[in-house]
């Protein structure tokens, strides 16, 4: 079983469209949507949810008002500015849950035992069925943390499902950026496909995410999406990839029909049989040979 991740650094370069096409082409894959902040893959694969699970994050502090004497030790020890001073002539302190990182330092420091660590449900994850095979995906609660941990839960369950059904691939739709959810998406990946658009931002961000992939020992390969928007930049990307010994698996042209396929909710390779879908199929064939 091989694990492929589609990443990009910059958002909106076409990760999800390419991932959905690969899922449609592979015939033997688990789809894993690891963009748990803003999951879009379901809009193209239309999963039917079979299992639904709660995702628990670190418990967060809350102050029991009756016990608080207003001594302020919690305020002094908190390094995340999560403790708020008493307001409107009240004597007790309070916690801003959006700033609390669940470190429990206030809990241990409070002499009155006035702090309670409250369990947090900060998302849900699902095992679903699509017409292409199983899919593991998640929804992080609004304004929650621990997206990296939720990604790890999705990845672990995708592996269990792939083994159970003896499937050849896990295809990961990665999140944008280079922070914790991206790092969690890259652990144990056999090949990272980096989708680059030929814009200065696209290039800058791809170079950073490639550095992250290499840092964690994941071999990267590139696809230039909408390459004809700026052929000069596309040529620069190809040159840079050659110098850094990163294979360029394909160049996809700008195609108006791609937006249309999103509106219709169909993976592009199924929506249209044209030159663009031919190129995406070619990229998938190359990945299968790696």
């Amino acid at each position: 079983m091989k694990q492929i991740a589609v990443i990009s650094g910059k958002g909106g370069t076409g990760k999800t469209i390419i991932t959905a096409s690969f899922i449609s082409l592979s015939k033997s894959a688990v789809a894993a949507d690891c963009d748990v902040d803003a999951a879009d893959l379901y809009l193209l694969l239309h999963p039917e949810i079979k299992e639904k699970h709660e995702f628990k994050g670190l418990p967060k502090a809350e102050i029991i008002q009756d016990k608080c004497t207003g001594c302020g030790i919690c305020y002094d020890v908190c390094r995340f500015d999560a403790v708020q001073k008493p307001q409107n002539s009240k004597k007790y302190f309070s916690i801003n849950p959006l700033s609390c990182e669940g470190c429990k330092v206030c809990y241990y420091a409070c002499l009155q035992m006035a702090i309670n660590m409250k369990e947090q449900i900060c998302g849900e994850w699902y095992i679903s069925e699509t017409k292409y095979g199983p899919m593991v995906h998640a929804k992080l609660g609004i304004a929650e943390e621990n997206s990296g941990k939720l990604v790890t839960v999705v990845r672990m369950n995708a592996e269990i499902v792939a083994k159970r059904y003896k499937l050849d691939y896990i295809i990961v739709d990665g999140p944008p950026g280079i922070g914790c959810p991206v790092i969690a998406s890259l652990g144990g990946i056999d090949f990272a496909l980096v989708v680059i658009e030929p814009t200065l931002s696209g290039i800058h961000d791809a170079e950073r995410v490639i550095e992250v992939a290499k840092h964690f020992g994941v071999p990267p390969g590139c696809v230039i999406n909408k390459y004809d928007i700026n052929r000069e930049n596309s040529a620069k990307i190809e040159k840079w990839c050659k110098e850094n010994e990163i294979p360029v698996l394909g160049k996809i042209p700008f195609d108006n029909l791609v937006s249309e396929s999103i509106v219709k909710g169909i993976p592009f390779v199924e929506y249209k049989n044209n030159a663009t879908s031919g190129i995406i199929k070619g990229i998938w064939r190359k990945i299968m040979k790696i």
Partner: protein
Amino acid sequence: MVVSFASGKGGTGKTIVATSLALYVSEKGINLIFLDCDVEEPNSALFLKPLIRKTSKVGIPIPIVDFKKCTYCGKCADVCTYNAIAVVKDNVLVFPELCHGCGGCFLFCPEKAISEKIRDIGVIEEGNTNGIKFIQGRLNPGESMVVPLVREVKEKMVNDSETTTIIDVPPGTSCPVVESIKGSDFVVLITEPTPFGLNDLKLAVETVRKLEIDFGIIINRVGIGDEKVEEYCKLENIPVIAKIPYSRDVAVLYSYGIPMLIEGEKYREIFHRIWEEIISKVR
């Protein structure tokens, strides 16, 4: 006043709209600070081309153990929520990449055997461009602690009657986004008229509502998809501040790092309206 530019989905045009508006506003002689809080992938500098005058390292405190004082009692490991410190028979192991820098081990060690040193996670760069004070954070690749760096960038925010702060926010809806938006007077959510744009816009709207900040929407690349985003805004009674039509020319300019404003009067007019809308909402 502080105005943030955010979106659930990446690549909807946050950076190009925020930088174009910054250039438009600075022409009016308004005192302007631009913060790029997308520390994972900071791109505003590609458009604003600031001259960076100062670079400072940002780090988080991690424990160092003084083995002369340590009795291996295990208190540090007990209080650490992140499993960043472990005590074995005759050693204490620190896992710096797991440490959030909360200071629990340092504070509760009964032998005072723990001190702290700073582990670098990124840098803050400060400079100027077109009369704008520019500040950005850059996370070190391979680093997962994003929020502390965003917090440092936010320290540079100024909120008074003479100064406007514009914030470029990372995509998504989780902790780095919340940290970036916190304390804003107004949030501009940028979306595109596709099912992906709409799905992620709804999440962004929920996020901003949870933070109880007033907001409006800019629909970018109008014409590429469908009408559902507009229908949603009408239904939810959310003001659409501007609609920016799709243009391949803008996409090409963007690819060279050229803000929309330079494209011509049509865009100047759009940014004039966006600015007027924002001030009318904040007042």
